[in-house]
C-alpha cells in the first residue's frame, strides 16, 4: 500500500509518532477535543482534503474517544475522497467489530452519510453520523468438560479474557473469536504435553441474551499421554560420550520439547567432549503394539575430536585483546570444548561492550582435528553523555548530567560520573564497575560521591565512597557485600533534639544484603514473592563516629485471586541497635515512617515521634504492614484498595507492635509501559493532633 495513502495529520504513522511522544491517554484526550479529521495529503483526485466531522450517537458502553481512534484511518480516507461512501460504511463496521470485541455480540452500527457528487465542488466539511445500537453486554461462562489431567485453572490461563464491570467482577466479556482462539490454544497445550490423541471439540455456545450470558462449553477428550518408551542412541554417540551421555528422557511425555531437548543435550555434551561439529538427528516412531509408547532414535555422527590450534581476536578497536581472551577458557593445545566457547560468548555479551560477538572455528590446514578459534567482535559505543530533566515525587524538579564510559581504556570496566540537582539537593557520584570481577561472574562497584539532600527533618550533606561486590548465588538469590564510608559534614537538623549533634558524623560501615526475588514481573508483579535482608554494621573501627547495627527484613507476597484481581501483602521490620545509647544515633540513621510507599495516611516521614515543632525525629525501630487489593478497571486503569499499618519506636528495647497507626484508602493506577502512575488517597482513622484526615499521594510505581 502506498505510504502516501496513509499519511494524514493523525494517520497511523503520525499517530505512532504521537504515541511515541505522548502517552496514550493524551491521544485519547485529543480525540475528544478535536473530533474533526482532515488528511494532510490529497487523495487520488488531487483535490484538497475536506474536513470530516463525526457524530457518535447511541454509544454508552464504550467511550467516544476509544471509538474515534478506531475509525481514524477511514475518516482520513473520507477526507481525501468524500465521494467514497464505502469509507463511512467501513467505519461503521469497524466500530461494530470493536463493540463485538468488547463483549457486545449484537452490536449494530449504522451510518448516515450523504456523499457529494463527484463532479460537483466538494464541500469544505462533511459529516458522518454513526448510529450505535449496542445491544446487551454479554459475559461468558466458560465450562471445560472432560479435562482431568489438567485442571480448569491451568487451562483457563490460556484464555485471553477481558473482564468487565466494576472492580472487574462483572465477568468476562463474550468475544466469540477469543473463545475459538482459546480452543486452539488448548489443542496446542495438550499436544506439547505429549497428549497427541487429545481432541478439543469446537466450543458449544449457548447465548442467553435475556440474562446476557453466553454459556460456552468446550469438551476435551484428553486421551492418554504418549510417552517416550525408549531412547535408542547411536553407538557412536555412546562411545564418544560414555558416562557423559545425558540421561535419556524415558518415561517423559512424547513432546517435541523433550525430543529436541534431548537432541540438544546430546549435542552440547558432544561439543563439551571435544566434538566441534556433531551431527545429531532425532526421530520418534511409535513402538509396534504399543499404541502410546514411542521410541526416540538419536542418530548421526559425532565427528572428530579436535584440539585448539590458535586463539585470536579480531574486530576490537578499543578493547584490549586480553580482556576478550580472558573470557575464553581455552588456549592453544587444549582439547576443544564447545561449552567453553558458548560460555565465552555469553560472558562477552555480558560485558555489554559489543554489539556482536562471534567465535569462528576454522580447521587448521584442512585438518578437522585442529581448530583455530577467532573471536570476532563488533564494539558498541561505550561512552555517553546524558542530559536529564524531569520531575520527582519528592525532589520535584530535577536535572542531571551523566558521563559514562563502559570500556575505560579498553579494559572492559566501566566508569561513570553522575551529577544531579533538584529542588531537594544535589549529588555527584563517580562510579567504577567491573561486570566480571576477576572472571568470577561477580560485579564489583567502586564509587565516590558527594551529595546534599533535604529531608523532612534534616539536611544531609556528605562525602564518601562505596565498595560493593554482588553475585548471583543461584536463580533468584542475590548476595551483596561491601564497605561504605561517608562523611556527613555539613548537615542541618530542623529539630531541637540532642540528635542534632549527630547530623554531622562519619559513617563507616560494612553491609551484607541477601535478596530472594521470585516475582514474575518487576514493573507489574502479579504473582510471586520476594524477601530481603540487609544488615549494616557501623563501628569506629570501620571509620564511623558511631557504633550501631541496623537490620531490615522485608517480605512481599503477591497472591492472584483471579486474572484481574490480586492481593499484595507486605511486612517490613527495621531495627537498629545503638551500642553507645540512643542519644548517639545520627538522625540520618534513624527510621522514619509514613509516605507514599509506607503508611500512606501520613505524608513523608510524618509518622512517629516528632519534636516540639512537629518535625519527625525518627526512631530505632519501625514496622510496616500493608495489604492491598489491586484490580483492573479498564484496559489500562487499575484500582487499589489498601490498608497500611505501621509504627516507629524511639528505643529498640521498647520494640513492639503497639501504637500502630493506620491508613485506609484507595487509589487509581494508570498502567504505562514504563510502570504505573499512581494516585492514592488514604484516610487516617486514628489521628493525633496535627495529623491530616486524608492524604493524597501522586506518584509513580507500586508502593511495594
Amino acid at each position, binding site marked *: 500500500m502506498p505510504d502516501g495513502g496513509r499519511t494524514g495529520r493523525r494517520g497511523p504513522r503520525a499517530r505512532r509518532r504521537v504515541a*511515541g511522544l505522548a502517552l496514550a491517554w493524551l491521544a485519547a484526550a485529543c480525540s475528544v477535543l478535536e473530533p474533526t479529521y482532515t488528511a494532510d495529503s490529497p487523495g487520488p483526485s488531487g483535490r484538497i482534503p475536506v474536513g470530516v466531522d463525526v457524530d457518535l450517537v447511541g454509544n454508552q458502553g464504550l467511550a467516544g474517544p476509544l471509538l474515534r481512534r478506531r475509525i481514524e484511518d477511514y475518516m482520513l480516507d473520507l477526507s481525501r475522497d468524500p465521494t467514497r461512501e464505502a469509507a463511512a460504511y467501513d467505519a461503521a463496521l469497524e466500530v461494530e467489530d470493536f463493540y463485538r470485541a468488547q463483549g457486545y455480540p449484537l452490536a449494530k452500527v449504522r451510518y448516515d452519510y450523504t456523499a457529494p457528487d463527484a463532479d460537483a465542488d466538494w464541500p469544505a466539511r462533511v459529516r458522518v453520523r454513526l448510529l450505535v445500537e449496542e445491544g446487551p453486554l454479554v459475559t461468558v461462562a466458560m465450562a471445560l468438560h472432560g479435562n482431568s489431567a489438567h485442571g480448569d485453572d491451568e487451562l483457563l490461563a490460556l484464555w485471553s479474557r477481558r473482564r468487565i464491570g466494576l472492580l472487574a467482577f462483572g465477568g468476562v466479556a463474550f468475544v466469540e473469536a477469543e473463545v475459538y482462539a482459546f480452543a486452539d490454544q488448548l489443542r*496446542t497445550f495438550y499436544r506439547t504435553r505429549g497428549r497427541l490423541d487429545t481432541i478439543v471439540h469446537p466450543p458449544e455456545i449457548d447465548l442467553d441474551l435475556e440474562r446476557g450470558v453466553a454459556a460456552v462449553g468446550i469438551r476435551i477428550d484428553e486421551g492418554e499421554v504418549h510417552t517416550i518408551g525408549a531412547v535408542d542412541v547411536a553407538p557412536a554417540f555412546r562411545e564418544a560420550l560414555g558416562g557423559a551421555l545425558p540421561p535419556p528422557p524415558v518415561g517423559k511425555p512424547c513432546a517435541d520439547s523433550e525430543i529436541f531437548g534431548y537432541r540438544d543435550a546430546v549435542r552440547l555434551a558432544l561439543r563439551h567432549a571435544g566434538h566441534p561439529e556433531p551431527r545429531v538427528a532425532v526421530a520418534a516412531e511409535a513402538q509396534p503394539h504399543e499404541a502410546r509408547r514411542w521410541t526416540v532414535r538419536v542418530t548421526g555422527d559425532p565427528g572428530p575430536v579436535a584440539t585448539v590450534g590458535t586463539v585470536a581476536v579480531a574486530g576490537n578497536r578499543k578493547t584490549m585483546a586480553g580482556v576478550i581472551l580472558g573470557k575464553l577458557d581455552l588456549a592453544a593445545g587444549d582439547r576443544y570444548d564447545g561449552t567453553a566457547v558458548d560460555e565465552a560468548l555469553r560472558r562477552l555479551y555480558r560485558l555489554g561492550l559489543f554489539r556482536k*560477538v562471534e567465535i569462528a572455528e576454522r580447521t587448521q590446514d584442512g585438518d578437522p582435528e585442529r581448530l583455530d578459534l577467532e573471536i570476532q567482535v563488533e564494539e558498541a559505543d561505550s561512552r555517553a553523555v546524558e542530559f*536529564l530533566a*524531569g520531575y520527582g515525587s519528592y525532589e520535584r524538579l*530535577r536535572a542531571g548530567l551523566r558521563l559514562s564510559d563502559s570500556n575505560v581504556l579498553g579494559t572492559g570496566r566501566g566508569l561513570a560520573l553522575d551529577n544531579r540537582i533538584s529542588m531537594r539537593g544535589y549529588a555527584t557520584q563517580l562510579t567504577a564497575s567491573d561486570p566480571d570481577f576477576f572472571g568470577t561472574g561477580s560485579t564489583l562497584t567502586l564509587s565516590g560521591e558527594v551529595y546534599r539532600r533535604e529531608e523532612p527533618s534534616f539536611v544531609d550533606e556528605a562525602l564518601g565512597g562505596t565498595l560493593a561486590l554482588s553475585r548471583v548465588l543461584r536463580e533468584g538469590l542475590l548476595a551483596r557485600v561491601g564497605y561504605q564510608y561517608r562523611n556527613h559534614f555539613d548537615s542541618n537538623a530542623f529539630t531541637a533534639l540532642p540528635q542534632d549533634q549527630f547530623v554531622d558524623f562519619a559513617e563507616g560501615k560494612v553491609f551484607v544484603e541477601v535478596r530472594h526475588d521470585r516475582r514474575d514481573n518487576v514493573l507489574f508483579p502479579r504473582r510471586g514473592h520476594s524477601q530481603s535482608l540487609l544488615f549494616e554494621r557501623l563501628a569506629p573501627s570501620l571509620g564511623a563516629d558511631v557504633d550501631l547495627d541496623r537490620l531490615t527484613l522485608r517480605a512481599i507476597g503477591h497472591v492472584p485471586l483471579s486474572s484481574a484481581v490480586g492481593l499484595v501483602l507486605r511486612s517490613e521490620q527495621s531495627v537498629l541497635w545503638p551500642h553507645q545509647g540512643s542519644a548517639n544515633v545520627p538522625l540520618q540513621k534513624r527510621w522514619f515512617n509514613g509516605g507514599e510507599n509506607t503508611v500512606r495516611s501520613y505524608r513523608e516521614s510524618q509518622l512517629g515521634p516528632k519534636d516540639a515543632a512537629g518535625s519527625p525525629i525518627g526512631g530505632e525501630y519501625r514496622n510496616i504492614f500493608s495489604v492491598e487489593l489491586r484490580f483492573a478497571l479498564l484496559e489500562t486503569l487499575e484500582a487499589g484498595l489498601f490498608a497500611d499499618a505501621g509504627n516507629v519506636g524511639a528505643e529498640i528495647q521498647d520494640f513492639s507492635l503497639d501504637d500502630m497507626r493506620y491508613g485506609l484508602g484507595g487509589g487509581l493506577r494508570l498502567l504505562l509501559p514504563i510502570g504505573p502512575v499512581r494516585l492514592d488517597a488514604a484516610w487516617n482513622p486514628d489521628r493525633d493532633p496535627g495529623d491530616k484526615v486524608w492524604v493524597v499521594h501522586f506518584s509513580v510505581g507500586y508502593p511495594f
Partner: protein
Amino acid sequence: MSPPPAPAARSPRPPRLRRWRRWLLLAGATVAALLAGVWTFRQQLVVPWLRPRLERALAELLAAERVTLGEIGGDWLGQLDLHAVDIEAAPPPLRQVRGARLTARYALWPLLHGDPAGLRWLQVEADSIELDLRHDPAATAPADRVSSADGADYGPWLRALPEGASVRVARLQLRGDGGERTQPLALTVAGGQGRRQARLSFGDLQLAATLAAPGAADGALPIRLELMAPEPGAQLALFGVDTGVHGGRLAADIGLSLDPLRIEGDLELRDLRRGSDRLAQSQVRLQLDDQRLAIDRADVDLPGIALRLQGLSLPSPFGAAGFAAAAVTGQFEARIDDLSAYAGLLPETVQELLPARGQVKGRASDGRLQLDRSVLAVRGAEVTIEGGSVPFTGDWRTTAGSLRATVAFDGDTCHLPWFGPTALAGRIAGEVAGSLVEPRVDLRLELGRCRSARGGFAATRGVVRADPDAIAVEGLVVQDLEAAGLPAGAAATLTLAAAARRRDGGLDPDSLALSLTIDSPAAADLLAPAFAAAGLGPGPGGAASLQLQVRHDATGVHLDALRLRTGPDAGLAVELDGRGTLPLRWPGSGELMPLAAGAAEFELHAHRPEGPATPPLRLAATARVAPTSFTFDLAEGSFGALRLRGALHGGAGAAAVLAGSTDLLAVPLQASFELEPVDLATLPAEWFGGTPARGRATARARATGTLAALAPELALELDDAEFGGTSGAPWLGRAMARCTVGTGPGGIVAQVEAQAMLDRQFGHERDLSLSARLVCDDDGTRLQPAWLRVAGGELALTLDADLRRGDLLRGAVDPGRIRLAGGLRLHGFQLERLPARWIGAESWRGRVTGEVALDGRLGAGPVAAVRTAELSLQDGELKLEDLPRIERLAATVRGDRMQIVLEPVVGALGAGQFTARGTLRAGQAPIDEDLDAAELALALQGEDLLLYRSDGAKVRAGIDVTAAGPLRAIAVRGHVEAGRGTKYVRRISLLPSLGAQGGAAVTEGLQVAPLPRAFGDRIDLDVAVRTREPFEVRTHVVDGDIDIAARLRGSGSAPRLEGTMAMRGGQLRFPGANLTIDSGLLTFTPGAPRFPELSVHATGRRMGIVVTMSITGRYDQPVVQVSSVPTLPPQDLIVLLTTGQLPSTLAAQGVTGQARFVGGYLAKEVFERYFGSESTERGESLFDRLTIETGREVSQSGTESVLVEYLLVPRLSIRLERDAYEDYNMGVVLRFRFP
C-alpha cells in the same frame, strides 16, 4: 593275292554276351552308384521331394489341419528317424502334437512283404501331445467296431507290435468330461515270441498288460491287464465321477475272439480304499458274444453301492436284433449306502433325494420289472415298496401297472412341487394302479407338521380318491394352515369335504358339493389389506377367529355361518355376523353368476381403543346386499371426536354388479351424512401436519344422483381456529374459514372466506386473508375476483380454468389437461410482508410492482402457468447469511416461459455500487420444463463492494464477472480485485507453539465459502483474484501487506483458490526481536486447495545475532525452523525472540534481569492496549526501544533502584526511575553516544 581264311576252331566267346554282361554290370554299377548317390544325398535329393507329400498324406490320414515334419533321418533301410513332427488341429482324440521325434528300426524286407513283424523297434518322443477324451454327443459309435466278417488271425496283429517300442511324452494334456490333466507319459512295449508286455505310466497311473499268442483251443487272444491306480478317484473324476476312492488295482483276464466276437473273462478289482476303509473285492464273470451278454454272477462293490447280479441275460448290443427289453431276465439285488458319489450321473430330481440308502431287489422277466419288498431311504422320507409290477417298455398311458407303497416322511426337508424345500413328517400310504398317467389313486394322508417357505400346516389327515370319472376328498382336515404372505399366527384350521365329477378333463361345477369350514384364531389378519384399502389403518390385528360355512348349489352360495371375532388384544375389535344366501352361483367357468333372488345381511360392529397415535374408533352398521340394491345404515360412527351418522343407499346389488350389465357410474345413490360439531383441539395434531389446533368445525354432506352426476352439497365451517403452539410455545397462527360448496343451475359454486394470522415463528407476523368465489359449471371453472390480502398489502388474483362440472362430478379430472388462465397484480407491494425465509434469506424488503399473467395447465405447477411476468423492485434490501447486506436494490424482471430478462439491477454492497444485467433464455423447451437447458447470460460489475466481513477480516473489491451457459453448467469468469479496506487484523496465537516443530492441527482448512450443492454444483468457476492494492495483515506475529495472484476455481459448491499470496515486505514481530520478512508466500495448490503451503523466510538481528526463521509446510502444520549466526540452540533462539535476551544472559543477570524482560513483554501488552494491535510499529521492536536497569543504586533499606527508559526518538528517551531514596522520578533524557 587273296587273304587266308580264318581258323574256325578257336572262335572267341560271343562278344555280344560279354558286351551285355558288361553293359549289365555297367548299368548295375551305375544304378548302384545312382542309388548310392541318391541314398547318400537323400537329404538333399529325396527329402525336399518327400516331405510335403508325406505331410499331406499324414494330414489326410489324421484329418488334421496341418502336419509338419522336420528332418527325416536314419538310413531308411533299417531305421527311420522323423524329427520335429507337429500336428495341428486334429480331431479328437488326438488334437495336437508338438515336437515329436519318431525313431523306427525295422527289417525292410518283411515289411515290404507285408509282415508287420518287420517293425523291430519303435520309439516316439514328444514335447507335448494334447488328447481330448470328452464325450461328444453328436459323435456316433462306429458302425462296426469289430469286424466279424473275416476270420481274424491275431498272430500278425500281435506280431505287428514291435518287440521293443517306447513312447515318451514330456507333456501329455488329457481332457475329459471332469477336468483336465497334464502329466508326462511313458509307454513301453517289450517281449517276443508271440507275447508282448506293455507298461504305461501316466503320472501316477501305472498300467501293465500282457498279450499272449492266441490259444490253441479257441483261438482267443488272451489278455492280461493290470491297472495300478494310486489315485483312481482322480482318474474317475476326469470322467465326472467323484467317488473319493483311492488306491486299487484292476486285473482282467480276458479272452478275446473276434470272429465270431466273443469275450469271456474275469474282472477283478482289488485294494480299493475309501478313506481308511478297504472296499470289498469286486468280481465279475461275463460272457459276451454277438447274441447275449451273460453275467453269471457279478459282485461289484463300489463306493456307496454294492450290486449283485445273478443269471443276468441281456441281448448283445452287437447283435443284429438289437436290444429287446422283453428278453432281459435275471435277478438283481442292490445295497445302496450312498449314491452321492454318482450324483453327477443322476438326474437333478434324483440328486435332491440324495443321500439314499436302502436295498432294492427284484427280477426281470417278460418285459416287466417285478419288485419284491424293498426299502429305500432317501432324504426326508422312507419309501417302502410292498410290491409291484412296472413295465419296462410300452405306452405308459395305457399300460397297466400297480404299485403299493408307503412313504414315511421323517421331518427332514424334501423337495416337493410347489412347496419347494419342505419339512415333512407323517406318511402317505396307498395304491396307485391302472394307467400310470391317469391312475386310480386311493391315498390316505396322515401327515404331521409340514413347513416350507411357502407355508405349512400342523397336521393333515384325510382320504383322497380319484379315478378317471370323479374326484373326492373325504374328511380332509388341515390344522393350523399357514401360507406365505399371511402374518405369523394367522393359522387356520380348514375342514373340507368335496366331491365332483370329472368332465372333459376338468371338474363339473354343477356336481360340486362343498363344505368348507375355516376357523382361524387370527383370521383378522386376513382382513388387513381390506382395512388398509379403506383407510382404517392396519386393521384389527392380533388374534381373531373366522368361521365360515359355505355351501353351493344351484340356488346360490349359502352362507350358513360367517362369524368374525377379533380377540381382546386386537387393535381393532370387529364383530361381523352374516348369514343368508348370496345370489351367486359358480358355474365352474371361473366366474360367479348372479341370481335373481336371495339376500344376505351383515351386522358390523367395530371398536378400536385409543392408541398413542390413533383416536378411538367405533362403528355400528347394518349392511344388506340384495341382487339389485344395497343399503348401508350407519347407526353409530365415531372416530375420536368425530361423530358421524348417515346412510347410503345404492340402486345396484351384488347380482347386478356381477352380471356386468350395470354401469357403476349410473347407479343411483342417495347419501346423507352429518358430522356433529367437533372441537379441533380433540383431533390428532397429525391431521394438521403435526400442528396442534383448536377451534370448532362442523360439516354436512348430502349427495344424490349417480357417481357420474352426483349433486353434492357440502358445508364446512371452521370457527376461530388456531394452529400451532405446544406446551407454551407461541401459536403459529389463527384462522377462520367458511367454505360452502353447493350445486345449482349455475353449476358448483364454492364460496371461500378465510382469514389467518401467522406469527413470527412462521416467518410472518401479519394477517393473511383470502376471499374468493369459485364457480364450476359446464363452461369451466372461474375464480371470480379474489383478493389475497397480506398485512395490508393486496394481491389481486384472477383465475380461469377449463375444469368443467361434468368432469369434476365424473371424477374425470386430469390436472395435466386443465387449462388455467389468470393473473396476479401487485402495486407497491411491500416485500417484507412475506417471510424472507421463503428464499433462504435472513431478511428482505422493498416495493414490488408488476403483473404476472398465468396461462397454463393445472398439473404443470405454478411456474409453468406463468405466461408473462413483469415485476420491478424498488428500495430493495436483501440479507443473505454469509454476505453483507445488499441495499438500495432496484431491479426489473421481465419474462415469459421462454425468456427472463433481468434489466439492470443496481444495488449497494457495503456502500459499493454494483450493476447486474442478463437474460435466461430457454433451450428447446420452455424454461419451466427444462430449466437445466436454459441459457444464462449474466454480467456483474461492481466497485468497492464489500464481499466479506467477519470479526477482524474484511474484503473490499471491485468485481467484473460474467456467468454464462446453460443452468446445468454455468461458467463464471472474470476477475475480482481486492482494494482499499481489505484487511486482516486478528489475534492469533503462534508464540506458544514456536517451540514445537509442527503437528496435526484440528482444522478443516481454509475453505472458501461454498454455495449450496443444489446450485453450486452447476457452477464452474474460473475467476481471477488479485489485489489492486495489497491488503493489510496485522496480527500479533505477522505484520505486512499481501498481494494476491490467484484464481478461484472449482465448482460453486466446492470452490478452491489456486495461486499465491505473496507478502510484500512486512515483519514477523516477536516481543524480543523483529524479523524482516525476506519472502513470504502462501501457495494454494490444486491438490490441496484448503491447505495452502507456507513458505516464509525472515531474518532479524538481536544482540548481534542474526536470526533466521523459516516457516514451511502446510499452513496448519507449520514447520518452524530457527537458526542463527553464530549457531545457538533453538531453545536459546526462541528465548531470544520472545525476550530479547539469551537465556544464559538472563540467568547471569539474576532474577531481576529475567523479570525485567518478562515484564517488558507484559509492557508490550500494555502498549497494545493503548495503541491497538493493528497499530503496532513496523519498525524496530519495543525491546529495541525499552531499557530497564536495576541495581544501579541501593537504598537505605536495601531496595535496588530501578530505571526504565523508553526511546522516543534517537537520543531522546523518557525515563521512570525509583532511586536510592525509594523516590520515584520521571523525566526525559538526552543522550549522546560515542565509541
